[in-house]
């Protein structure tokens, strides 16, 4: 991608302990795990660098304690990182004064929380209008905007309900509407669906994809659920012990995991819905005939055709040129790699 990133994190560190900055300085900004163990400090985020591009959904995945929540709080400066840079619109967020930070949050950032973070004493309407209220918008203006957001997330008619009168899924819809009310450029979601039942979670994921199709926000999405990451993410970053282990598209991650830790996650990934035909096509010339398969098709879509055919089938790119072929054996290998059988 040659596009300008929306957010760039450079060498981000978040260290907990009695003297985090001094600890980092003493170890030349590169403490090892042994240093941490010996120095009574904890490295929650360790030298993390990545870019988020406009309009993409970047998923940060990790188990509890991996540092993903600390990372998102460092980027949003809910908890200031110990060192590093966060370039947002050409400026280092870490150098922003608290007044500038408030301005940025009031206009350019939105965040959704795992346990919703709704204000229990306010109605749905008033919750959604809250960010507009604190930035000083007039009542009519903020109510109109809030109603628009409530309609967007499908909660029309519940404007005067209080949070406790809503189901979990509905409450998170309110959280989503509130986070979108200011029209943010960057949208942070911190395990937004983890507190919901599996069925509702699925429904909310679809809702999320629908909204993103409509809004095209730049998104940083935290989850501990690899299936969710694969389903929603354009790119996925996997965190372990505060470090970013691998950052790649779901397909690259499944087809070539960086290490055993990542492989463990991808083992049960729905390969038929992640891998594309292009990535498993054999580089052999095959005659174009009546039936060809697009390289960008997921292998699950192509499998019935390939498995039904005696002969290899040509794989073509978007322009219709042949880039290789795929046969039964290759398809079966891709669907059922050895380690799973």
């Amino acid at each position, binding site marked *: 991608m040659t596009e300008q990133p929306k957010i760039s994190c450079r060498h981000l560190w978040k260290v907990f302990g009695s003297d985090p900055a001094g600890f980092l300085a003493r170890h030349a900004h590169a403490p090892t795990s042994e240093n941490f163990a010996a120095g009574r400090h904890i490295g929650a985020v360790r030298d993390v660098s990545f870019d988020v591009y406009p309009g993409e959904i970047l998923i940060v995945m990790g188990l509890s304690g991996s540092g993903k929540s600390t990372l998102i*709080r460092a980027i*949003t400066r*809910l908890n200031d990182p110990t060192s590093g840079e966060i370039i947002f619109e050409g400026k280092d967020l870490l150098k922003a004064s608290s007044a500038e930070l*408030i*301005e940025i*949050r*009031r*206009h350019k*950032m*939105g*965040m959704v*929380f*795992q*346990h*919703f*973070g*709704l*204000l*229990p*004493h*306010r*109605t749905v309407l008033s919750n959604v209008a*809250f*960010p507009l*209220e*604190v*930035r000083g918008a007039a009542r009519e203006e903020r109510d109109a905007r809030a109603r628009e957001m409530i309609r967007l997330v499908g909660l029309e008619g519940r*404007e*005067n*309900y*209080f949070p*406790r*009168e809503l189901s979990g899924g509905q409450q998170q819809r309110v*959280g989503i509407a*509130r*986070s979108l009310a*200011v029209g943010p450029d960057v949208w*942070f979601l911190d395990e937004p669906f983890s507190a919901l039942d599996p069925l509702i979670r699925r429904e909310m994921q679809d809702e999320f994809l629908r909204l993103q199709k409509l809004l095209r926000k730049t998104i940083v999405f935290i989850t501990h659920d690899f299936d969710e990451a694969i389903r929603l993410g354009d790119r996925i970053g996997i965190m372990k012990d505060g470090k970013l282990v691998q950052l790649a598209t779901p397909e690259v991650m499944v087809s070539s995991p960086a290490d055993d830790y990542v492989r463990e996650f991808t083992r049960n990934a729905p390969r038929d819905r992640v891998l594309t035909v292009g990535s498993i096509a054999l580089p052999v010339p095959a005659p174009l005939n009546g039936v060809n398969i697009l390289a960008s098709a997921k292998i699950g879509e192509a499998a019935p055709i390939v498995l039904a055919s005696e002969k290899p089938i040509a794989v073509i790119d978007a322009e219709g040129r042949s880039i290789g072929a795929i046969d039964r054996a290759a398809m079966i290998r891709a669907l059922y790699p050895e380690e799973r059988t």
Partner: protein
Amino acid sequence: MNGGGQALAAPQFAPAPRLPLATVVVAIILLGAAAAWIWPPLQRWPAEWAIPFRDWVTQAFVWFSAAAKPVTRALSWLLSWPLWLSEALLFRGFPALNLPPLPWVAIVGGTAILGHWAGGRRLAIFCGLSAFYLAIFGLWQDAMQTLSIVLVTVPLAAALGLALGLWATRNARVERVLNSVFDVMQATPHMAYLGPVVILFGFGQVPAMLATFGFALPPMARCTILGLRTVPQDVIEAGRMAGCTPRQLLWKVEIPAAEKTLMLGLNQVVMQTLAMVVIASLVGASGLGQKLLFSLQQLQIGKAVEQGVAITLIAIVLDRLTQAYMRKVPEHSAPKTGFIVRHPHISLFLLLLAASGAAAGFFHAFAVLPKELTLSYGGPINSAVRWVSKELFPYIKPLRDWLTVWLMLPLRNFYLWLPWPVMLGVLAAIGYHFSGWRLALLPVCLFGFMMLAGFWEPLMLTIYLVTGATILCVLIGIPIGIWAAHSPRAARVTRGVCDTLQTFPSFIYLIPVIMLFQTSDVSNVIAMLAYATVPAIRFTYLGLLRVPAATTEAAVASGATKWQRLRKVELPIAFPEILLGINQTIMMALAMVAITALIGSRDLGQEIYKALPGADTGRGLLAGLGIAFIGITADRLIGAWAMQRKRLLGMA
């Protein structure tokens, strides 16, 4: 930081070998007794060696009150205005403007409407009837006078407590200091606040209000700290991400989200204020409390009961109203409706006010209930009391005498004989055994100070009364708690009784005690008993309830009988909780010590009471501190014991 770490780490290692506590205690008693026999000053600290702290304190206060006169005058003047306004509204009227007070009909109706708004129909009926009681039994003016102090003090104390609490949440050092100050403030009996306040502000309503602050501030500040601490992290982060300034975050997010806990604080403020206003009648605060005090002193039990019931009703109404409001959940209303639909209660009250105001213009009885229309049941009560003392006392007397001979006298003689080195030594040994050197030093310093100040005998007599009361409380409370834990119906009844008993201002307990037992040490103990058994019951019940179901089931599966289960499984696990209940019981018994002085005693409470009229600040204040010291010592020692048990059970 370091100390905390070590304390936490300590149980990891094998403890240093210690002599068993019992051995140490016996050794101290024998040694102390022998030493005291050889050299009498070790038995009783000679009076001529006492250090005149009390005179110093008195002189300091006299000097200070003179120096602070402009400030105290200004403060009194400032506070007298809101008080004047609320008294004018409730019962005095505005003679200068020729305006009457709010008609009693409107206030009774308004109370019912308030009850309906906060808690529904049942509360409305209760509130309305309670207010009507005040009117129909001719206690209206006194009740309104008491109420006006409450109405003015509560908002002030709540606001001040909130501010202190907020300050503490912003600054860890402030929190530490406030916490220790609050500990002492809350352990000092209500009455001990009156002395200094009288010196500084004189007698009357305003000093009563100021004395109230001492008791009403700590719970409010503590609830503020707790409430703000427990706002969910998500909510605060959502507020920050919405772009709140720190001020917006506090007022629009944190305080509203902590509303429930803050309301609990407000409830405490209201109850403490009422309790204090009643006691403040000792320094000339007029109102129901004063009338009750007069009735008690003249042994007019019938009147006292009427007034006591009135105070109790006010207390319960205020308690239930604030609690109902705390539980009240916002309901959504249909948008775009009129004022009357959205605010039916306010509308109804305005209507009632207009109607009763108009009616009062024609019939004076609507404005002020005429004396001819009021009732009294004091007469029948008086004859009942006469009957009781004639018919029942012969039966109660043996119980009283039996308790006196077999419990109270031996205890009293024991404490009075106890050489002071033995007392201090045993307490230090207990403190050292359960915690360490610091806890060993604490009781020695506190009690040693009281001894040097010449308060040893009243101190011992206080401990004696409290010990007696605590023994009885435990004997009565724990079985009730066990019973409640094993029978849901018993639990329901017990909870209702406990809740009601705890709302009574402590004064009230004196009425039946005088009726039944007349004046004696046993009466004092019984009054403490009525007041202080509740926590023993409640903590036993809660402790047993918290025993994990799996543990009980395992005991049943092992073939334990009901009795074995209780003795070998449930009670040991609930023991730390029960200890904390006993701790609370001691605290409440101590709070009652000062009150029972009204019916005669020789303990620290009596010292406080005697110091009041003579403005002997040092005597009253030091005696009050003495009670606080007993409380703090008991609290720390029992707390350390409970902590040790909890750690052993892996529950800390």
